[in-house]
């Protein structure tokens, strides 16, 4: 029997959609659908073993080779730049990385711009392009609160529908890039399990095409 491919799925709504895509592609795992207390879920016949991890950790599991493949957001890939193959845009979890600010915001170039974000590398890289002097304020959640309470002038964060921004009287002032979930693979794992990984990729592509 061929070797099992270990797959890291992101916990949460996106992960469930991703699993559904894998299931439709022929890699259903009944164990995972009735999880109980187990942490890893295997379908030997299909040659896959799944485990759920925090979305921001998927790339780490894959880069370190614990998972051969995984699905991670483009935002995480651009922020942490893991050394992995990015095999496919699975077309789920679509959103944008944006700069947002209170509606009244006007950039005052005489002052250092205070930027609150979870994505510090992304924010630094963006402002380095224009040479704008910034102060990064690293936050781990409730980013929208920062400009409202005067902790920052702007935020750099993910925007899906814009509803949260609207509720907090914030508006998008710049879009950095589009985001979607990507199928990633460990470079060494890919070398030794390429046949199976390419088969999974191809089947996911077919599911993606059929959904269009």
């Amino acid at each position, binding site marked *: 029997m061929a070797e099992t491919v270990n797959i890291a799925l992101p916990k949460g709504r996106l992960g469930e959609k991703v699993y559904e895509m894998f299931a439709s592609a022929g890699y259903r795992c009944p164990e995972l659908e009735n999880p109980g207390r187990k942490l890893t879920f295997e379908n030997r016949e299909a040659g896959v073993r799944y485990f759920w991890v925090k979305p921001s950790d998927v790339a780490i599991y894959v*880069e370190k*080779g*614990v998972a051969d493949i995984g699905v991670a957001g483009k935002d995480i890939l651009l922020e942490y730049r893991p*050394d*992995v*193959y*990015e095999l496919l845009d699975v077309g789920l979890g679509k959103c944008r990385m944006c700069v947002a600010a209170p509606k009244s915001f006007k950039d005052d170039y005489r002052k250092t711009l205070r930027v609150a974000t979870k994505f510090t590398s992304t924010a630094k890289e963006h402002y380095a392009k224009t040479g704008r002097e910034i102060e990064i304020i690293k936050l781990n959640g409730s980013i929208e609160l920062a400009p409202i309470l005067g902790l920052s002038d702007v935020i750099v964060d993910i925007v899906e529908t814009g509803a949260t921004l609207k509720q907090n009287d914030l508006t998008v002032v710049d879009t950095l890039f589009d985001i979607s979930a990507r199928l990633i693979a460990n470079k*060494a794992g890919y*070398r*030794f399990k390429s046949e199976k990984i390419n088969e999974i990729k191809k089947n996911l592509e077919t599911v993606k095409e059929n959904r269009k």
Partner: protein
Amino acid sequence: MSLLSQPELRAALRGFFESSGYRRYKMSKFEEYDLYAGNKNFLMSEKVLTFTDTDGKLLALKPDVTLSIIKNFRQTEGVEKLYYHESVYRDGGHGFREIEQAGVECLGDVDEYAVCEVLSMAAQTLGLIGPRYELDISHLGILSEALSPLDDPEKARVIELFGGKNFGEIENILEQNGVSEDVKARILQLSRLDCPAAEAPKQLQDILGGYVSWERLQLFCDTCEILGRKFGSKVRVDFSTVGDISYYSGIIFRGYLSGVPQSVLSGGQYDQLMTKLQKRGRAIGFAMYLDLLEPLIISSGEFDFDALLVYPEEAKPADILSAAEKLRSRGLKVSVMPYEPADMRFGEIYRLGKDGDLIG
């Protein structure tokens, strides 16, 4: 999987490099910082551990061996073949780490034979450690030429995407830059090229024939054919094997071993670096990262020592010494203690009797 212990691995590598006609190059742990400041992109990490010497000079603990070897290359003719086994000091993401590295460098009049020799040695080095290995090769000169419709920043971006097998975004960039359909198709096919070395010449001719320099393509195809014949499917041509084009100019390669999640060996031709450091000729070499091999290395044994000799408080030192020597004369590694330590493992435990006799 054939497992080696650390000392066996080191001995095997040195033995192999020497039997291949490479001389040991021993170097100091320090280097003037300026060498790295001017070549940061060549280093795996830009962070360098520096300190001020007693004369005020800024020195660095070596983050890389190749730069120092090139800097000290003085030969006015011929080819210099060297190997090294050194520690380098790099940022591991959460602070500096000492990393053990072994590799070879071939400098000066590097001909096509020397290129094949180094590539062949890279594959053989991987094979010394485990039978399940793969050496991936590509050619940055050919890739760079194939991407000539793009300007430099876009070219660098596409090369990075080649490295990630991110075919979708490569296509987007080619479209955004108005690359013709014919050229776009060639570049996309090249990005997907991943086949045993023996099959590469035909595929490369199909994809790039008449588009890139014939001579360069032919030389690369010849090398692929030789490696394919010698190593079968263990050597593959995969254009996701990339590096910085300002340093690497020709063949570039990475080695993988089953059981290790990263590439354990990397190398390539860095003729541009020779020019940059005002040295004559061409250069090719590779490094193997010994710290990454830990999952494949066996510790020196199941036990800390073959035997423990426990002596009672009243035993005479002369009796203890002679009992220990008796055990060691049997070829055993013997630890001598007045008690049995709980945190160590021994193959056998002996006790020293009152009359100085050994009780097994």
